[in-house]
């Protein structure tokens, strides 16, 4: 070792193991470190915030993502000859014709399901129907699902794969466009795959009634889950554990691209290997793949030409659009389609969406791709487990790994936590003029004061209880049947907390810290914790929370001016509870909670609204 190295070593040793009492040295070192951090707390906080926000907004850039790849050896995608041919296309056309007749004759769902069941039976598959009804809704919601099971010819049916189509397509989140071609594809496919004896697991064909509700009823019955407002018939035919599911959505006349919709309920995602296999197969077959239905380029006409045509900017814009769509689906918790329902039962599923177009593809290409994908899932030896469950797809063949997106939100959360701890420490100390003018000191001393923890905790608990009460009212069945409930609830949620300052009168003394400081400390620490936890469960929701709450909660402060305080109070309540006044959003959320069990409504009521209410109270206490 050279002289310099030795010197460095000696320095390090002196630094870490100075002479004297090692414990004392350690305590001193720790104290130095803490004071170093504490003195620069504001800078640290600010830089964490800036880093976090910059990171969030750079997630769509091409620097953070990478190409997708297969991780599961068993899949072997696209290595089979496909035999789906014009005969099967003819079958599909035939089924489509029959379905169109049913549609034109305004057949009830009972008649439809009887027809589809008879077709399954004619093909030679055991088939059955399932009636279901969701109760306790203003409008009745019922229907009939049809399903058929192809028993695995050579092994026991301990596992199953599902091929499904819902009666209503996912166009505009189930606006009523019928998925006739999707249903016809499933029927023709059932006839086609029955010819082969190489299926290593049962294949279940399901035609779900409605958009999401039919499949929800079927899956609940299949897995023996009871839902208090659901009356579903027991399934006559059952099979084994379902590993994968393909949902087929073909609303148009022809298709130009196949779109991938993959977000599940409450932020769950399917294993990426499934999506990768599909897009690989589809592109090999010759059909281009897109994420969602984004086949057109984003219109950036408002940008100057030289910026607009820069490849990096173009990529960023396209990927940001995909990610924004993803964040909306994932944060809302309702997922992006029927496939999302499967994820609750740990079934990897996604929707193959035939993007409507004048051509050039149709049943022929779609059938081949599904056949090949089915062969690939048939190769699985165990559940999909390799690859990724945590990812952001920025494009059909590129994704951001968890390590490249999670820190953005965590940084903001850490900044909030530091802010909260700083407020907590500040609340305990007060600078006061020295009484005795001895010893020629500067005249200022720090004195310790009591922090009103109990009061702050009861306020925090109270806000959450109020949130829970709001949720109870919102989810009650007569909430939607009575008029003006939402404005009334909003006003109640606005007025009731105003009574809080009366319960905790502030007697400003030097011995007790102001309640608002302690409340703010609690609020920031709690929000930070919530964001960190949510970030691994539902990253999009956590990112939305970080953006919505990060800076606003950190700048909350009490105001001596009463009017100013009320303005701030109102702003925080609007931030926290404003969504209640958006009619469509509220109705959708209530429906999602009632029918599908989406967690967004209770989360907003019990966690999000109380957090912003606490910040609002900080302003007026």
């Amino acid at each position: 070792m050279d002289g310099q190295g030795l010197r460095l070593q000696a320095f390090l040793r002196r630094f870490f193991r100075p002479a004297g009492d090692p414990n004392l040295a350690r305590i001193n070192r720790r104290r130095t470190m803490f004071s170093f951090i504490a003195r620069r707390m504001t800078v640290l906080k600010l830089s964490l915030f800036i880093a976090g926000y910059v990171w969030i907004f750079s997630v769509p850039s091409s620097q953070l993502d990478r190409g997708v790849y297969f991780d599961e050896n068993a899949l072997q995608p696209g290595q089979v000859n496909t035999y789906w041919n014009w005969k099967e296309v003819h079958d599909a056309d035939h089924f489509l014709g029959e379905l169109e007749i049913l549609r034109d004759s305004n057949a009830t769902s009972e008649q439809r399901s009887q027809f589809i069941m008879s077709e399954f039976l004619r093909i030679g598959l055991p088939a059955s129907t399932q009636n279901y009804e969701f109760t306790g809704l203003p409008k009745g919601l019922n229907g009939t699902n049809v399903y058929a099971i192809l028993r695995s010819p050579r092994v026991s049916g301990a596992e199953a794969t599902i091929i499904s189509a819902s009666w209503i397509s996912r166009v505009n989140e189930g606006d009523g466009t019928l998925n006739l071609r999707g249903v016809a594809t499933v029927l023709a496919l059932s006839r086609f795959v029955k010819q082969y004896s190489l299926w290593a697991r049962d294949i279940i064909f399901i035609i779900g009634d409605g958009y999401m509700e039919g499949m929800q009823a079927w899956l609940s019955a299949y897995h023996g889950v009871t839902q208090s407002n659901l009356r579903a018939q027991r399934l006559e035919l059952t099979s084994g554990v379902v590993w994968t599911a393909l949902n087929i959505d073909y609303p148009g006349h022809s298709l130009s691209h196949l779109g991938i919709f993959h977000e599940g309920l409450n932020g769950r995602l399917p294993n990426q290997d499934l999506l990768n296999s599909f897009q690989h197969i589809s592109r090999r077959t010759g059909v281009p793949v897109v994420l969602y239905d984004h086949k057109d380029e984003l219109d950036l006409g408002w940008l100057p030409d030289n910026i607009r045509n820069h490849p990096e900017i173009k990529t960023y814009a396209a990927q940001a659009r995909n990610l924004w769509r993803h964040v909306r689906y994932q944060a809302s918790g309702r997922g992006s389609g029927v496939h999302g329902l499967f994820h609750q039962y740990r079934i990897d599923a996604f929707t193959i969406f035939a993007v409507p177009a004048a051509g050039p593809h149709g049943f022929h290409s779609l059938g081949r791709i599904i056949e090949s994908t089915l062969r690939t899932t048939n190769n699985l030896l165990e559940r999909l487990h390799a690859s990724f469950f945590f990812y952001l797809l920025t494009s059909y063949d590129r994704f951001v790994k968890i390590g490249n997106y999670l820190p953005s939100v965590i940084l903001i959360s850490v900044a909030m936590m530091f802010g909260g701890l700083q407020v907590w420490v500040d609340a305990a100390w007060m600078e006061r003029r020295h009484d005795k003018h001895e010893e020629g000191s500067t005249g200022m001393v720090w004195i310790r004061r009591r922090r009103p923890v109990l009061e702050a905790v009861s306020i925090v608990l109270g806000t959450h209880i109020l949130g829970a009460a709001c949720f109870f009212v919102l989810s009650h069945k007569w909430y939607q049947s009575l008029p003006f409930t939402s404005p009334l609830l909003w006003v109640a949620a606005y007025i009731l907390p105003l009574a809080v300052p009366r319960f905790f009168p502030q007697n400003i003394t030097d011995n007790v810290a102001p309640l608002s400081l302690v409340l703010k400390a609690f609020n920031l620490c709690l929000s930070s914790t919530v964001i960190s936890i949510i970030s691994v469960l539902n990253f999009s929701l956590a990112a939305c929370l970080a953006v919505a709450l990060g800076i606003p909660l950190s700048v909350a402060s009490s105001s001596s001016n009463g009017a100013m305080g009320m303005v701030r109070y109102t702003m925080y309540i609007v931030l926290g509870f404003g969504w209640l006044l958006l009619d469509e959003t509220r109705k959708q959320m209530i429906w999602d909670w009632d029918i599908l069990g989406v967690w967004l409504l209770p989360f907003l009521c019990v966690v999000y609204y109380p957090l912003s209410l606490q910040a609002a109270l900080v302003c007026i206490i």
Partner: protein
Amino acid sequence: MRLPSLSLFLLLYFLLSSCDASSQHTNNWAVLVCSSRYWFNYRHMANALGMYRTVKRLGIPDSNIILMLADDAACNSRNKFAGSVYANPGRHLDLYGENIEVDYRGYEVTVENFLRLVGRLSSSVPRSKRLLTDSSSNIFIYLTGHGGNEFLKFQDNEEVSAHDIADAFHQMYEGGRYNEIFFMVDTCQANSMYSKFYSPGILATGSSVVGENSYSHENDYDIGVAVIDSYTHYVLEYMEKVNKTSRLTMADLFTSYDVPKIGSHPGVRSDLFERPLGPGNPNHPMSEYGRGRGWTVEGGGEWMGREIEAGKNGRVLRETLITDFFGGVVDVDVNNEDDAELRLFEDPECISTPKAPLSPSTNTYSSPPSSRSSSSLLDTLDTYPLLRPSLAFILLGALFVLVFSGMTSGRS
């Protein structure tokens, strides 16, 4: 009349035949192992079955083949052609055909069972699952599966290491359970598998050098998976040229390795092996093994024992034929039979005094009690070189007289 003439003839035959130390094996065995399971490893089963077909075609009977298949690809529910295993995309030849004897199947294929099979013998195991070799057995051992540096994965949960196999082989050597071993392995980094051998009489070859993958050869798009590995495919292709009486040597086999086709760099290890790999012709391409066209890895092909190969040709040993390992014994030299032939029918564990396998055996083909006396006589013969031809001359004359007298007496 006929009996004495026959015995005389046999004695004469033995005396006249040259004392060739090299071709002393009297039986051939093959151990073929596919160590990986699962449908997507179809090709490994096809590898092993391809080898099975070849050794069987070249004359090793099922009783002398131990076939270990870790999975049953033929009966996998994903197999579109149920009950068949094919190793080529056209599906011309069903390797799982009509006459397959799988000795270890499925979860029986474990590291423990493999090492017990090779290294030890337990009388509690059925005879069909035992490697009943002796000191004059030539054994062909073929392994395929997923491997790495000095290990081969069995099933999906355990590995056999190169040390384990080396020790097992040495145990065989100590027990006098082989004459020569030809070890072939097709996995990723296969050449590391034979790097730890230390027992004499082992010739080894592998598909790829350390740090290199071994690749699959072709897919069948109806079966939906790769059907055979590249190295094995080209070895089997070469083997199609070999028949039971072929004089092709191991050197010919090794020089047939074509790196651009195989996709990896096969290696050879012959430093433990006594006999020359091919005819002692310095122009034979074997002398340039691993240096020709296509060998791109640093240092060319790996051949442990390249230096001592030239020295082997100076001795009287016969070159190594492919059929020494891949076939049954077609031209048995009677003089080299020792009581091993008889031992075959006894329980091998009862052998009390195993002999060193490489010592030249000099026993007549006669019953055990008389063998002792005759061996002492033969020792004298070996000591006096002129005695043998003169004795032969006398015996030949006696035989001639006998036959002639028989003919004359028959006429009269």
